[in-house]
Every structure is written in structure tokens, then in C-alpha cells.
């Protein structure tokens, strides 16, 4: 109660997102997403998959996008790369600033130059993210040749190096393997190797640990950590798993119903969640120290994307909902320098 | 080569008969001076390809016509039935008793290897091939006669290199026409295959006509099955030595799937000649680049009355047949169905035959003898009918039950089908219900035409005696017959009691006797024969063993630049003298 009060005050002192636009750390920001809205215009209605998301990605940091499935994380990632299927999807407003460019306004040719080269992405299911009828080698070489002026031999050599770097055994053979001949972990690594093949400045990882089992998950997280350390690149890590966030993230953006509800450094999110939703998520984390019979969970289900509740989308599930919650969108307030939250509790 | 008597009423615009031989002398049109050898003549046909060029094995007229381009027969005739003896034969002489035929062939005839064609080749062909048991020439019956109840072959004999005789034991004044059609096989090749039917069937020389030497206006070039038969100009042709004939580089017979595409090809100028259907005749006449010739044919369509045990009993009665014939309008058939390209028939001898006479001919189905009311009355008087209140007569069975007749007809022939429907319509007006049974030609033959005596192990034939019946019962049947203009006696097979094709079971001793007399010594006298045919015609027109319906006319469409054509019943007889302008 006390903490809440404190943050409320802090928000009053530094109102509005414009505050950190002029941040001194601006040079450090490699990707800036501002008020991004990506809607899907389907026959049954408009799905506001991403409905006003803003965040910065700084150089060398690992920013986690967290939230339940369907909250718009993946769509945000795809919007950054301009990979929204159109129709039915469309970025209706917002800016994505990268390297002096607004990616939303970029021509598809400019975007293609950035994709895979400056910004790469790793999808969650390596099984379906790799083309089943092309060899692993071919798929990596293809990307290298696309962005680098290398001949086939050189591209191949680089691909072999990358795979070896990812810790894949007998690389030469694996190059000629088709995806189905690899194990799940190997596939994931191959995919990561592919995304790294052009030394991207930003790597987006879309739930790379969801489809694999626990030991591999740990290995992959290790890989990412090493990468970040070694390569000085920014990582946008998408996950629904706060445990993963805690393990790898520097900062986190919590999303709900297409909106970023809370943004803060990871340590603060874990120790001092402001938004009731974030708090709920953290409460759901299995805590080994406490022996409880059952896992906690947030009551209710994620809202129907076609019928988003008015006001704060979370209010039907929120145990601290107020009258205003169902009427007005909560404003974004900064509870501390790096900690922002959208909730009427702090308005 | 053989002319076939029964025709499937299929395509009425039948192809012209390209005579097995043609005049050697320049025809009096005197146009040959302008003729030069050029161009390819393409004849369009629909209705199937030939089977074989090895003609002794053939069953179909198309096969004989293909071979005819490369191989002349002994003799032929022109449109006025003048016999042209200057073909392969120099002379065919009949002894006064009508038994010995002496044939003298030309001495400049050569096989392909250069050896002369001799009388020996002819006699060999007759004796060792056509009369042989191993080869089973299907039409050897033409060369057989009945002597003391036994069927024997006529006797051919070589006299010298260019002369041979054929001796009969019985007189047949019209046998000479069979001889005219004779073509030879080369003995020097045929001996290699003698006795081995399989080898003979597959003999490359016979199947590719490589032996024909100078015997025909054209030489075999190519035959693509179901597509085209191509012969090329034979520069050595014995009749062309002086005049340079024939004048076409190639003669092509092109096979089409339908008459529609065939005619369209003529219109487009893709082909030189084809038959024209009645519906199209006027259109083609008005085309500037086409010349249409309308000529009589040998074909006639008839309605057979089943007088066997499985037909309606009434049909055995002459009056009933007459009454039915009286109810069917032949004008409608010739005008509405065939659009004028037919004339009413009253007997089996058409107007175009030299033996035709209309003296005493009873003309059922036209004029005053097309009278439904009278027909109904006739039937009523025979007991087949009931009078209704308004005095009109409804034709019924004798017991007053409705009369139901079965009319069989083959499919694939539009005129035949149309006629069947017309017959049904006409008879319905008398109160007779006619059920039309449509079926393929072979089915019609096997189940309705062929017959056998029930409960015996007889093989079905077309006429298995008076007790025989067909497998399926029928009453009426639409069919086409060919008549031979020069030898009408051939029609005995249809109308004589024992005639091989008398499937309707008609029997009249008087008719039998007349046919016999037409083939006897008495008929050697032409006037006597004319009398016999007149009597036959009159008798059959009155007896109505069948309802003779119409004789057909055919339309032949040519590109206008084809010259030298003499239209007529046998218009192809001089085709080797045709040329492109």
C-alpha cells in the first residue's frame, strides 16, 4: 500500500512518455517503438492485436516482452520487421525508429535490407520455422549470400563456423541434413545460427524456449546469454515465462491485451510489480521455497480480441478494479525513472 | 470388285464409286488438252476406315474402294451403262448358250517386278485363292452355281498368255457383271503364301500393295489408320501412256469423325471433294468455290414386314400389308426428311436402271394410294378394327384389343431413325401403337434379322426356312438395301422364298419362279428379260413383301477447279481423267 502511494507520486513528477524521449541515454537506444498499433481487419471485426505499445531497446541490453499468449507480443515483433500479413493486418499508427529510419514508413526494399541483416528473429518452433525441404546449410547460406558479398564457398565456410560456434557436432554433415533429421535442440541452434549469420544489431527471440524440454531450454538460454556478452547486440526476448525473464532479461515490458502495461528493469518488476496483472503473474511463479499444494493463477481468461473490454482491458480480471477502470483507458505513468505503468491505481 | 447389297443406312451422301477401271480413250469432252499433272486431290469420308488392302480378306466396301485406286478391274461402265471393255480386259465374250465366257486381257499389263500379267494370274487367283478352302474367300458364293442340288464352283481355264475361259454349267445372263469386277493377285508372289492363311494375311506385298505395277492410276504411298489413305500418281499407268493421266500428284482419302467436320473442311477448302448432307446441299450450291452434283444412288430404304411366326399375324395377309403401306406417306419421307433428295420407291428397280418400267406399278404411299381412311377400312374389313361412334375406325387386333407393333431400327443412321419415327406417327393415326426399338447395327442383325427354327441346334442365319424366327419378336424393321442397276436379279436374295437375305419370311412361288426365269436361258434374250423384270416389279409393288419407301439421291461437293467430272450414277468412272484447272 505504501509502495503504491510512493509510485503514484513519482508519476506525478514525471508525466508522459515524452519525458524519456529526451533522455540522455538516447544514443544508446537502437530501436524505439512508439505508440505502435497493429490491427487485423477480419470478416468478423477488427482485432486490435497491438494497441499502442511503446518501448526502447538499448544497445547491448536484453529487453523482455512478457505476457500471456495472445497479448500481442509476437505481433509486435513481426510489426518491427514489417512482416504483418496484409491483408488482413495493418500497422495503423506509431513509429518504429531504427538507425534514423521509421520502419513503419520504410519501403519494402529498405525493410528487406534491414531484415536478417540488422534485425534478425528466431521463432519459437524451430521445427516449423525451418523449411522442411531445404537443407540446413542451404537455408543459412541463402541468408549470408543475400546480405554479404560472398561467393557460395565463402558463405558456406561462414555457415559452418556459425554452426560450430553454436556447439553443433559434426557440422559438415549437419550442413547437408534436412531439418527433420535434427533433434529439437539442434534445430533451435541451427535457427539461431541462421539468424546470427549476418551479425545483426538486434536479435528478436520469439519464445525460443517454449517448444523444447527443460535441459535444452537451459542450454539455449545459456547460448543467448553468451551471445549477448560476446556480440554486443541488443536482444528483444519474447516470452510468457517470467522465470525466463528473471534469468535473462535486463528490462521487461509486460503486455496485456495489446498494450504495454508495465515497463521496468527486471529486478524491479520481480521485486516490486506495480500493475495488478504483473503482480498476478509473479504470484503465479512457482516458488520452490514455499511448499504450496496448488499453483496460483490469475482468475478469468484472456479477453476475446474482438471484444476487448472498454477502459482497462484487464479490469474484468482485476481484483483491485475500480469504477473508472471500465470507463477510461489508464494513462501511462512513470513510477520511477525506468519504471512505467499504465493503471488507474497510479493515475 | 464386289459391290455390296445391304447397306447400313448410315451416311446417305455416300462416296462416289471410283470405278475399278476407266475409259482408255480421251473422253469426248476434249478437255484433256488443258490438263496438266498438278495438285493433291483430297476426298473426305466419314464412317470408318478400311480394314485391309489385301482385298480377298476384306468385308467392307471401303477396303475394295481403297484397292481400286491401284488396281483396275476387268471392265466397268459409264453413267449410261455403256460397258467399257477397254480396261484390263480387251474383250469378254459370252458363248451363245450363255455358258462359256472367254476373257482376253491386254498384253501391256505389268506387275511391279516387270513381269506381264497373264491369264494364268487370273485363273490362279480364282482357283487357288478365291475358290480355296484354306483362304475362305467370304464372297465365293458369287462364283458358285447349283447343279443337281449341289453347290459347285464355275470352271476357269487358261487358254493362252492373255486369254482364259470361265465355264458355267447353268445359265446366268448376269454373271458377266461378276466377271467384270474380277481383279487378279500376282501368282509369283501368292505362291509363297499358298496354304498358309496366317502368312497370307500378313503378307507385306499384299498389305502394302507393292505388286500393282501399271495396273492402276495410282500407287500406294501411305495409310495412316483412321486418318488418311494416300496413293500417288502412277506414271506407268497403262491407260495414261498416251494422255498422261492421272493428273493429280496424289489422291488422298481423309477420314473424318463426323459429317459436320467433313463438310466444314470442304467449305474451308481443306479438302477437294466430299459428300454433302441434304440439309447442307443448298448452302454448298450457293458457295462460289464449290460445285455440287446431285446424282442418283443404288440405295433404297424400306420398311420390312415380319411374316414369320413371331411377327403380328396380320402381316402375313397381303391386304394388311397393302393397307399399312397405304398409310405411310412417301412424299413426307422424300420431302420433309430427305429434303427432296429422294424419290418414292415402288419396287426394287429404280428409275435409273435400264430395266426400269413403270407399267402396272402399284404406287402405294403416294397420290390416291396414300389414304389413311381407306387403309383403316381395308384393315377393318379384314377384322382388324372397331368402328367408333363417329364412324371412324380404330385399328385393333382381331379380338378388339389395342394393336401394338414393334419397329426395329439401327442407331447411327439419322434418316433411318427419322423414318422410323414417321412410321410410328402415321400408324398412330390409325390407332396402331408402334414401339421403336433402337439398337446398334450388329445387335439388330443378330437379334432381329437372323433367325433359326426354335428348339433346334440350327445356327442362326438370315433365312433358315419358313419355320425359323428371330431371337426377338418384331413386326416392322427399317433397313436399307442396295440394288444392282445392271443385274436386278441379284435382289432374289431378298424376295425369293429361299433368298439368303429374305429375313422377313416372304414367300410367293410366283416371285420365286420369276427370279428363276431371270437367271435362265430364256433371259439371255434382253427383251424377254425386260418382260420378266417388269412382271417382277409389278408383282412386288402389289404384293408389298416390304414397303419400298424411297430411292436416295446423293450430293457430291467438289472444289470448283476440279474439271472433267461427268455427273451421273457412276460418276467416278473416268476419275483418272479429272484434273485441276
Amino acid at each position: 500500500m505504501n509502495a503504491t502511494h510512493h509510485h503514484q507520486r513519482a508519476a506525478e513528477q514525471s508525466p508522459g512518455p515524452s519525458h524519456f524521449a529526451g533522455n540522455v541515454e538516447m544514443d544508446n537506444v537502437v530501436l524505439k517503438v512508439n505508440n505502435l498499433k497493429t490491427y487485423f481487419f477480419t470478416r468478423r471485426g477488427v482485432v486490435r492485436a497491438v494497441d499502442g505499445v511503446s518501448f526502447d531497446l538499448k544497445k547491448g541490453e536484453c529487453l523482455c516482452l512478457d505476457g500471456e499468449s495472445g497479448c500481442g507480443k509476437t505481433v509486435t515483433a513481426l510489426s518491427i520487421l514489417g512482416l504483418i500479413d496484409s491483408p488482413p493486418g495493418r500497422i495503423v499508427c506509431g513509429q518504429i525508429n531504427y538507425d534514423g529510419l521509421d520502419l513503419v514508413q520504410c519501403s519494402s526494399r529498405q525493410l528487406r535490407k534491414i531484415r536478417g541483416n540488422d534485425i534478425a528473429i528466431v521463432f519459437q518452433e524451430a521445427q516449423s520455422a525451418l523449411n522442411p525441404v531445404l537443407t540446413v546449410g542451404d537455408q543459412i547460406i541463402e541468408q549470408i549470400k543475400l546480405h554479404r558479398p560472398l561467393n557460395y564457398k565463402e558463405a558456406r565456410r561462414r555457415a559452418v563456423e556459425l554452426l560450430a560456434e553454436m556447439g553443433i557436432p559434426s557440422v559438415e554433415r549437419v550442413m547437408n541434413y534436412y531439418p527433420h533429421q535434427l533433434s529439437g535442440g539442434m534445430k533451435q541452434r541451427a535457427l539461431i545460427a541462421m539468424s546470427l549469420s549476418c551479425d545483426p544489431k538486434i536479435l528478436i527471440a520469439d519464445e525460443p524456449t517454449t517448444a523444447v524440454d527443460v535441459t535444452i531450454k537451459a542450454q539455449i538460454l545459456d547460448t543467448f546469454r553468451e551471445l549477448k556478452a560476446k556480440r554486443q547486440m541488443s536482444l528483444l526476448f519474447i516470452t510468457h515465462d517470467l522465470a525466463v525473464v528473471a534469468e535473462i532479461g535486463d528490462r521487461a515490458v509486460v503486455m496485456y491485451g495489446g498494450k504495454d502495461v508495465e515497463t521496468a528493469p527486471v529486478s524491479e518488476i520481480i521485486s516490486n510489480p506495480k500493475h495488478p496483472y504483473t503482480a498476478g503473474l509473479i504470484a503465479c511463479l512457482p516458488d520452490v521455497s514455499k511448499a504450496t499444494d496448488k499453483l496460483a493463477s490469475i482468475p478469468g481468461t484472456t479477453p476475446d480480441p474482438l471484444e476487448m473490454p472498454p477502459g482497462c482491458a484487464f479490469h474484468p480480471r482485476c481484483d483491485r478494479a475500480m469504477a473508472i477502470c471500465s470507463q477510461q483507458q489508464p494513462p501511462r505513468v512513470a513510477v520511477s525513472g525506468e519504471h512505467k505503468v499504465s493503471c488507474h491505481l497510479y493515475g | 470388285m464386289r459391290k455390296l447389297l445391304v447397306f447400313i443406312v448410315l451416311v446417305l451422301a455416300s462416296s462416289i464409286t471410283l470405278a475399278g477401271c476407266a475409259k482408255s480413250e480421251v473422253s469426248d469432252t476434249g478437255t484433256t488438252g488443258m490438263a496438266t499433272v498438278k495438285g493433291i486431290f483430297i476426298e473426305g469420308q466419314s464412317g470408318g476406315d478400311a480394314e485391309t488392302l489385301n482385298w480377298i480378306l476384306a468385308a467392307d466396301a471401303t477396303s475394295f474402294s481403297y484397292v481400286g485406286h491401284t488396281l483396275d478391274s476387268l471392265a466397268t461402265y459409264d453413267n449410261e451403262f455403256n460397258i467399257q471393255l477397254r480396261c484390263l480386259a480387251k474383250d469378254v465374250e459370252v458363248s451363245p448358250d450363255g455358258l462359256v465366257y472367254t476373257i482376253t486381257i491386254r498384253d501391256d499389263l505389268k506387275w511391279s517386278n516387270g513381269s506381264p500379267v497373264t491369264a494364268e494370274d487370273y485363273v490362279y487367283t480364282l482357283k487357288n485363292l478365291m475358290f480355296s478352302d484354306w483362304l475362305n474367300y467370304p464372297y465365293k458364293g458369287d462364283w458358285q452355281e447349283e447343279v443337281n442340288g449341289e453347290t459347285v464352283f464355275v470352271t476357269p481355264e487358261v487358254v493362252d498368255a492373255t486369254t482364259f475361259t470361265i465355264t458355267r454349267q447353268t445359265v446366268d445372263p448376269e454373271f458377266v457383271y461378276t466377271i467384270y469386277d474380277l481383279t487378279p493377285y500376282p501368282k509369283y508372289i501368292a505362291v509363297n503364301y499358298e496354304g498358309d492363311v496366317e502368312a497370307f494375311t500378313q503378307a507385306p506385298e499384299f498389305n502394302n500393295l507393292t505388286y500393282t505395277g501399271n495396273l492402276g492410276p495410282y500407287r500406294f504411298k501411305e495409310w495412316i489408320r483412321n486418318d488418311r489413305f494416300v496413293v500417288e500418281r502412277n506414271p506407268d499407268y497403262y491407260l495414261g501412256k498416251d494422255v498422261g493421266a492421272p493428273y493429280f500428284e496424289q489422291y488422298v482419302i481423309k477420314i473424318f469423325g463426323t459429317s459436320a467436320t467433313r463438310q466444314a473442311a470442304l467449305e474451308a477448302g481443306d479438302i477437294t471433294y466430299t459428300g454433302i448432307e441434304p440439309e447442307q446441299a443448298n448452302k454448298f450450291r450457293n458457295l462460289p468455290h464449290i460445285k455440287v452434283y446431285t446424282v442418283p444412288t443404288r440405295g433404297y430404304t424400306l420398311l420390312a414386314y415380319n411374316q414369320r411366326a413371331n411377327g403380328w399375324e396380320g402381316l402375313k395377309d397381303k391386304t394388311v400389308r397393302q393397307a399399312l403401306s397405304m398409310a405411310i406417306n412417301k412424299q413426307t419421307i422424300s420431302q420433309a426428311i430427305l429434303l427432296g433428295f429422294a424419290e418414292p420407291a415402288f419396287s426394287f428397280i429404280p428409275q435409273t436402271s435400264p430395266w426400269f418400267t413403270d407399267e402396272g406399278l402399284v404406287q402405294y404411299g403416294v397420290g390416291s394410294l396414300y389414304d389413311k381412311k381407306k387403309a383403316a377400312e381395308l384393315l377393318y374389313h379384314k377384322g382388324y378394327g372397331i368402328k367408333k361412334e363417329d364412324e371412324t375406325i380404330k385399328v385393333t387386333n382381331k379380338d378388339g384389343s389395342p394393336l401394338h407393333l414393334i419397329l426395329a431400327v439401327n442407331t447411327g443412321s439419322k434418316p433411318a431413325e427419322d423414318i422410323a419415327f414417321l412410321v410410328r406417327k402415321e400408324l398412330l393415326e390409325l390407332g396402331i401403337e408402334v414401339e421403336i426399338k433402337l439398337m446398334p447395327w450388329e445387335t439388330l442383325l443378330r437379334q432381329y434379322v437372323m433367325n433359326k427354327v426354335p428348339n433346334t441346334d440350327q445356327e442362326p442365319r438370315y433365312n433358315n426356312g419358313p419355320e425359323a424366327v428371330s431371337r426377338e419378336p418384331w413386326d416392322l424393321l427399317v433397313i436399307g438395301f442396295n440394288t444392282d442397276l445392271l443385274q436386278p436379279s441379284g435382289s432374289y436374295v431378298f424376295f425369293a422364298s429361299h433368298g439368303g437375305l429374305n429375313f422377313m419370311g416372304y414367300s410367293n412361288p410366283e416371285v420365286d419362279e420369276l427370279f428363276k426365269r431371270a437367271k435362265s436361258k430364256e433371259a439371255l434374250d434382253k427383251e424377254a428379260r425386260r418382260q420378266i423384270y417388269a412382271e417382277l416389279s409389278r408383282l412386288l409393288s402389289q404384293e408389298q413383301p416390304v414397303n419400298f419407301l424411297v430411292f436416295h439421291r446423293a450430293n457430291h461437293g467438289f472444289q470448283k477447279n476440279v474439271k472433267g467430272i461427268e455427273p451421273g450414277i457412276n460418276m467416278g468412272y473416268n476419275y483418272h481423267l479429272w484434273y485441276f484447272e
Partner: protein
Amino acid sequence: MIKGLEDTIIKLRHFWHSNMRLVSYYWERTHRNRLATCGLAFIVFLVLLALIGPFLTLDPTEVNFEEKNLPPVGFTVEQSVYNIETGEFITKKVAGTWKHPLGTDSKGRDMLAMIVSGARVSLFVGLIATGIAIILGTIIGVLSAYFGGWVDNVMMRFTDIMMTFPFFLLLVLIVFIFGPSLIFIILAIGLTGWTGTARMVRSESLSLRTREFVLAARALGASDNRVVFRHLIPNVISLIIVIATLSIPGVILAEAALSFIGLGDPTVPSWGIILEAGQHSLDTAWWVAVEPGIMLFLTVLAFNFLGDGLRDAFDPKSQI
């Protein structure tokens, strides 16, 4: 007694409701597809035409050579008759009349009446032959899947042979041998056309066989008969409906093709038979070939539209 009746009624009502819900659900999904709706409407129209049309039109067998080859309303053609005496043609212009709105054929039969009675034949052939093929295919497919082992092996090898057999040639052979009667044509098409159904039903049943409710039924000791007829077949019904709808046009076309090459039943005027006659007089009376062709085309199109719509409706994958 009354209690039993009540139970039955309740059960029936329940059955009716649950099924009607399903039916209306599928209808809703099919209906959404505009083309499928058009197809269904045309088929309904066609069925009505076939059922009551013959009572409204002229007699299709009535010939009248005085009125032959009349063009459809709005067209004029020239017709001429040859005069054998003068060698000249008497030509007249003939215009289509409302008595024969679609014209007449070369026998003067009313084309409209023939098209209408042709609809009867073509639909009859389509439905019966498809019925035979579908029933055979379903039985073979279900049994194959259910029993597996050597039964499956034998049946599927036989299906393989049938599938490899050049279908149309087989059809032509059978009809040629047994004669072109409608019954044989239907039987020939039905008896040769089941292979696809058998394959599809088999694979569908194979996946059903391992599903819980079948396993449960078998565990509870249900007889083979019961499992096959109560559990397997009802569950492949939707698949079968789709196959049937998509097979009917094929069957109608097969009959027409047979007629076209001269192996149709000449006594029953199907569209194919009319078309065959018409192609010989394309130049004189084009409408005789064009009209049945259009009907054939529209019918096949309608069934394809409907079949496609149904497939989408029944296919859970295509849910949007």
C-alpha cells in the same frame, strides 16, 4: 407403456434437436459461401424441373417433320427443299416461335421438352450410379479400415488394380459388351467408380478407429457390426456427403461422354444423347448441340459449387 412412449419422444426430440443444430450449423457454413448457395438453388431448380417439368412441356417424343430444325426464339434460319424435277431449291426463312422456345431438333421434337426430360435421365443416372459407387466404396473402405490385416490388404490391392485400370476404357468395354442400355451404363459407372471413395473412407476410418469413442465401444464389447454401423459409418457421413456431391458431376459427364461416342442408350434421351445427335448438324442446327451442352455444364458447375461449399463447411481446418 406411456412412460416408454414419453422416453422415445424425448429421445427423438433430443436427436432431432442435436441433429438440427448440426444441420443448421453446416447450413450456416455452407450458406455463407455464395457460390454453394447458387449451386444448391440450381440443383433444386433442376430437381423440380425433372419432377414436374414434363407435365408442363410438350411431349418430348412427339415428332413433326413439318416443324423440324426450328431455331430458338429470336433466331432465324434458312431451310430449303430440293425439287427433283426441276433441280431447283425451294427456300424459306424460318424463325423461332414461342411454341418451341428452344427450337426443335431434326425430327421436329420440342427441344425444351427434350431438355427437361433429359434432366430427368441425367439426374437419375447421376444419383443412382453415384449411390452405387458410394455405397460400395464406403463398405469396402470401412471394412478395410476396421478389419485391417489381410482383409485390408486384399481389398486395397484390388482397389489398386481398379484404380490403375484406365477408367474410361473399362467403361467403354463394359458398355460395348453388355449393350448400351441405361441400366448397364449406370451399373458400369457405379461398379467402376467406387475406388476413390473406398480410399478416402478407409483413411478417414483408420483415424477414427483409434479414437476414444470407438475404442470405448469395443472395450465395452460392442459387436463388429455395431461398431461399424453405429460408430464408424455415421462418423464418415460428412465425408461421404462431400464425396457424393463431388462425384455426381463426374458420373453425369461419364454418361454424357459415353453417349457422345455412340454408347448411350438410344431409347432414353439423356443430354448426352441429344448432344451427340446435335454435333452432326452443327452447321444446320447449332442449338441442338449447344443447349444440352449448356445444361450439362451448368449442372456440373452447380454440383461442383455445392460440393466445394460442403467440403469447406465440413472441414474443421477451414474454419476462419
